[in-house]
């Protein structure tokens, strides 16, 4: 299915098309990597809803990105249970290894580093989400191994996959 068809399928689940804005934004973000203005307008047009309704959701919910993010978005939990298990040390280490500060993206577009609120996986704290996957019981050695694996995966990725990191042309 293309993006429009997926959004239409989502809209069919609700009696009101406005309810489909959130699922549509998730679909659009998967397609485009992030949600720049033209994509938000396309979503509004497909659903036939007010553009401002789409904008206000894209800027309210933290999983929506209106700015580009790296191919691998490292989302380190620093809420209480992870903090108590030294997530601060892991953040400092990641900032050093990647050469960026929290919130930044490496110049090659591979990594964006963020801290996030509780991921709901405190039994394996400290924990970090990368893409769809949770990585738990982290320490410095495991972080290093993970970053190496991700770099290797990026090396093997095709141009099309890497394009996720780039802002789409308008």
């Amino acid at each position: 299915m293309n993006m429009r068809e997926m959004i239409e399928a989502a809209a069919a689940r609700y009696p009101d098309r406005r309810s489909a804005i959130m699922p549509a934004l998730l679909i659009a973000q998967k397609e485009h990597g992030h949600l720049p203005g033209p994509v938000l307008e396309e979503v509004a047009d497909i659903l036939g809803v007010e553009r401002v309704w789409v904008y206000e959701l894209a800027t309210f919910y933290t999983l929506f990105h209106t700015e580009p993010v790296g191919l691998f978005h490292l989302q380190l939990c620093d809420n209480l249970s992870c903090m108590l298990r030294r997530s601060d040390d892991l953040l400092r280490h990641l900032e050093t290894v990647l050469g960026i500060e929290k919130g930044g993206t490496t110049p090659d577009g591979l990594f964006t580093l963020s801290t996030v609120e509780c991921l709901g996986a405190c039994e394996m704290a400290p924990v970090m989400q990368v893409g769809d996957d949770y990585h738990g019981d982290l320490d410095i050695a495991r972080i290093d191994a993970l970053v190496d694996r991700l770099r290797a995966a990026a090396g093997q990725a095709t141009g099309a996959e890497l394009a996720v990191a780039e802002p789409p042309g308008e």
Partner: protein
Amino acid sequence: MFEPVLLRNMDVPDGHLLSSYEAGGGYQALAKALRQYTPDEIIDLVKQSNLRGRGGAGFPTGLKWSFVPKRADKPKYLCCNADEGEPGTFKDRIIMERDPHQLIEGMAISAYAIGAETAYLYIRGEYVLAIRRLEQAIAEALAKGYLGTRILGSDFNFVMHIHCGAGAYICGEETAMLDSLEGKRAQPRLKPPFPAVAGLYASPTVINNVETLVCVPHIVARGPDWFRGIGPDKSPGPKLYCLSGQVRQPGLYELPMGISLRELVEDRAGGPPPGRRIKAVIPGGVSAPLIPERGLDVGMDFDSLAAAGSMLGSAGVIVIDDSTCMVKVATRIIEFFHHESCGKCTPCREGLNWVVKVLRRVEAGQGAPDDLEQLEALCKGIFGNTFCALGDGAAMGLRAALAHFEHEFVAHIEERRCSFH
């Protein structure tokens, strides 16, 4: 010996598949409900069981269901609150990942009881594995006739849809969740009207937590007396406890309601790391006021914890040992609430911003002599003055930290440094 029921399928290979669930007796409670009971009789069973909502508030589930008007000219909705965002809580995620059919069966029986033909399962978007497993399980259940039209030969029709959240803690508040489902920014509604009368799309709506819903098949299968026989009579049943923080064996534990917090932390979860001592425990996610070590001999149920000045909340038990600075803990908790404040009402939006600034400077050794008075004044301005419980939770948490560990805050201000790091 307590026999786990909610987690009984955790170690079953491929326990998330329909074949495994059926092999363990799955969907027989749904068949029994549809064959032997009217919807009102199911509500009565749940009332008799004294099941109270596991999302945090502890409201009696059967009573909540009975508020739905019997005759309504609008469709009724069931919503499952799976937007598990309370820091320290991971029980719903584990159920949905490993035993999604248990939730689907619970939702089907609950929808039958309230007369709903459609349900929305609002799950946090981060829970990718749980979402995939639920999608697969719903497809399996539809194919096998546990969902769909004329379920198991009855007149009951029921479908459920997954709605993925997008990272807003406030969606755990049930009216904010409804606004989010309607495609709006998630902000709590003024009540009344309560959702049972005018909820999703202004239709009668019941919102229940995942753990609440998975209790329902067991109540139907084993009867309300069985359920009430576990733990305190007014707050009974099997309960999931999430253990995390500075404890040797973090994890998900199923034990009776009312078990002592000390037994849970020291015996079941192995106590603090070697050489450390417990300083305090948060019993129910960061919204629940912390309990200092000397108060750990308290029952983990709604009423006992309320009497002790805290709350069961989501039963996210976070253990803090003596190597940890309580000012840092309080700062991190308030930073969280500030970040997640939806911005609708001023005391929460502005007050928490102010509290964070004061706490950060105290933690950094730059606190002013009157900062503790400032903090109390801010708590007073927030508590009881907001639409929803987010601001209250923040104020209660901070007040407990100040009450029990005031000496640490004072030391930061007087010594102009943090002695822990």
